[in-house]
């Protein structure tokens, strides 16, 4: 067993209970294990299966709670109650929905490519779950602390688009294909600012490992890197196609786009993956910008992580609830002409600051924040001036002096037309002809 695995409390606790006799566990004062000596490989497998089960079910449970919470919040935002019938505060509504979804008829369109059509839900659920494997949920609570964690996240989240394309193409539906094309346009445009926004953080932390990034956040990076946070948050919203960038689903235009032909649990998996992406995005933002699980004692680290996660989720739901959708060309313009410039400004400024303070201490981080905030505000203001829509040149016309007056004379009050009789009206018609 590798030492790195044993730093991970999740792994250690399961593995060492099973194989306490092994050398590494004995040195950590575990009593003798449940399994006889020489069965470390079995302990390893059981630990792995247990952790996979724990994470998958934990995430799915989180999704169920999130769906309920989002609906309740929707209700509050829209001055109504939201689900409140099934279970306490309507908490079982999502469970009822899940059961209903499972028992629906599983339709496959006649012209669909069956293999790809069935593969697409798997393709979307797998990357959504994979992201959670590198996120530390608390001290020592992670599946793996990859030394390229940030890169892994970027790679895995972009796989979602492949699944959207697969789903759209295999269902042989033109509306779905339009939605997939939009999805790819979004991916190509927003992957770049999203990755570049993280460059500043990687420079500050000096590592791509999420554990190291959290360790470097003596001051949360949202304070040190406001511009990076701004860009990353918006790009992440676009990546998971949430409002105001929900072009791929676009209920009012494409009527759910690539999901058009999916029914039953296949649709359910897409639905779950969407919410999983929401949780994973919040978790990434929490880890990279809100100092992850760090907080004050004696409140445990998991609580801090959860509280920050919920705060980010709330902001995402708030966005979704209040903002209308942007048009495709506006979304792409925003990425290339707005966010891309902002990330470049951020990289240059951060590089200069890193050159001045190569190993920033806490006070130096505060100094960086003091320099970064005015730059962020000025550059965001400048970009909004560049990209914003100018108001009308002409003010509203005066009704008493209109631009296109119709009939300057008074119209006779008897414009309410009344002919003397039908026969006369017919006669005049014939005369006209």
């Amino acid at each position, binding site marked *: 067993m590798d030492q790195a695995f044993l730093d991970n409390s999740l792994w250690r606790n399961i593995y060492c209970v099973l194989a306490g006799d092994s050398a590494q566990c004995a040195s950590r004062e575990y009593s003798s294990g449940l399994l006889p000596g020489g069965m470390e490989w079995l302990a390893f497998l059981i630990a792995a299966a247990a952790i996979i089960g724990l994470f998958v079910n934990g995430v799915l449970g989180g999704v169920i709670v999130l769906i309920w919470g989002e609906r309740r919040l929707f209700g509050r935002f829209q001055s109504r109650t939201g689900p409140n019938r099934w279970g306490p505060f309507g908490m079982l509504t999502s469970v009822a929905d899940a059961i209903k979804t499972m028992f629906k008829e599983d339709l496959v369109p006649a012209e669909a490519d069956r293999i790809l059509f069935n593969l697409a839900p798997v393709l979307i659920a797998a990357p959504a779950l994979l992201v959670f494997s590198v996120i530390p949920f608390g001290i020592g609570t992670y599946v793996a602390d990859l030394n390229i964690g940030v890169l892994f996240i970027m790679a895995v989240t972009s796989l979602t688009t492949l699944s959207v394309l697969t789903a759209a193409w295999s269902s042989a539906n033109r509306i779905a294909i339009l939605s997939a094309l939009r999805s790819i346009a979004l991916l190509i445009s927003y992957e770049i600012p999203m990755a570049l926004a993280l460059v500043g953080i990687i420079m500050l932390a000096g590592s791509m490992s999420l554990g190291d990034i959290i360790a470097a956040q003596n001051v949360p990076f949202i304070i040190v890197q406001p511009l990076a946070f701004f860009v990353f948050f918006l790009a992440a919203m676009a990546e998971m196609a949430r409002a105001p960038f929900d072009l791929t689903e676009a209920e*009012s235009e494409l009527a759910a786009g690539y999901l058009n032909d999916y029914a039953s649990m296949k649709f359910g998996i897409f639905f779950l993956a969407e919410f999983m992406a929401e949780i994973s995005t919040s978790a990434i933002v929490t880890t990279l910008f809100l100092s992850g699980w760090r907080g004050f004692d004696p409140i445990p680290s998991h609580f801090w992580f959860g509280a920050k996660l919920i705060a980010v989720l709330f902001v995402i739901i708030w966005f979704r609830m209040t*903002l209308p959708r942007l048009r495709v060309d506006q979304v792409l313009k925003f990425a290339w002409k707005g966010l891309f410039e902002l990330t470049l400004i951020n990289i240059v400024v951060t590089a200069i600051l890193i050159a001045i303070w190569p190993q920033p201490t806490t006070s130096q981080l505060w100094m960086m924040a003091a320099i970064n905030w005015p730059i962020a505000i000025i550059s965001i203001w400048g970009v909004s001036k560049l990209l914003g829509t100018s108001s009308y040149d002409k003010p509203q016309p005066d009704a008493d002096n209109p631009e296109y007056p119709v009939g300057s004379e008074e119209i006779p009050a008897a414009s309410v037309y009344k002919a003397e009789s039908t026969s006369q009206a017919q006669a005049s018609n014939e005369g006209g002809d």
Partner: protein
Amino acid sequence: MAIKTQPVTVNLGPQHPSTHGVFRMRVMFDGEEIVDVEPIFGYLHRGSEKLAEERTYTQIVTLTDRMDYVSSMLNNQAYILAVEKLAGIEPSPRGVWLRMIASELQRIASHLVATGFLLQDLGALGTPLIYAMRERENILDLFEMICGARITNSYLRPGGVFMDAPEEFWPALERGLDDIVSTIDELEEYLSGNEIVFSRTKGTAVLSPELLINASITGPMLRASGVDWDLRHRAPYDYYGRITFERKLHTASDNYARYWVRVQEARESVKIIRQCIEQIEPGPVRPSFDDVPRLLRPPAGDAYAAIEGSKGELGFYLVSDGGISPYRMHVRASSLINLTLLRDMLIGGQFGDLFVTFGSVDLNMGEVDR
């Protein structure tokens, strides 16, 4: 190497969440750009005009409710004006004031629905819509007080209305008007300054005033292009001659201008209702049944009366052969006529704007298909 592309034809509707009912469009896309649009309607045709030939003049009021079901009172008013013209009925003053109040309330409700659904089409997930609908509920509550019905009111009768408003209606109306003003303020604060709303609606689906006039488009769509045409001002019916109000115009003639004109008109309607409350006088709400019998037999002839509906000029043309039901009824449905420029508005535009433009016409399928 240039990639060979070809336009894609997509069928949108009649079962589509944003078609405001059952409308169907066969749209040809080149990428995101709209190349061709073929509107197909008639899915909600109920033959109202034919049904009217079998009903008495009072019974037809219920048919008009169901034409444009978000502005029933206005339909009632247009129809009743035509009947009064045809039969030469002198309406009672209190009845006229009451129906003016009712129809202006209905205009506010209709404009609120139009604004709410415009935002829904823009992709806001229901929040602005529900804010608008919440205020419409209050208006429907007021309708419930004066006639017992909320949507299919059938409140108007030849010569006035069928019952007087109860005592508690007047304080409720005052409160309701204050609420409406604050809701419109709230909506405007959230929407008019919203960068996304503005950038989505500014400069999209621009129509020239000449084209609008030639296509006989009326209502907020025409006024959004700067043409000063409002039947309440141009050809005052009922007592609109005794009312002063501003005609709100905009020159841009795009989706934003249409939205803006509707919101401002809702404000003006509040002012009109306040003036009506000041000028209303006690008296009977309709002529006695000796003067206007329940079973009207207008003399043979025909009459056309039009009002400024919430969507444009709403006119009823009635032909009588002296019997108890009209020989022919025809409706100048403003929704249908406003829809005729759909191709000019959509072609060359973006797919994302399709339903926004469609919604900015503010059409009602019940009125289009009748």
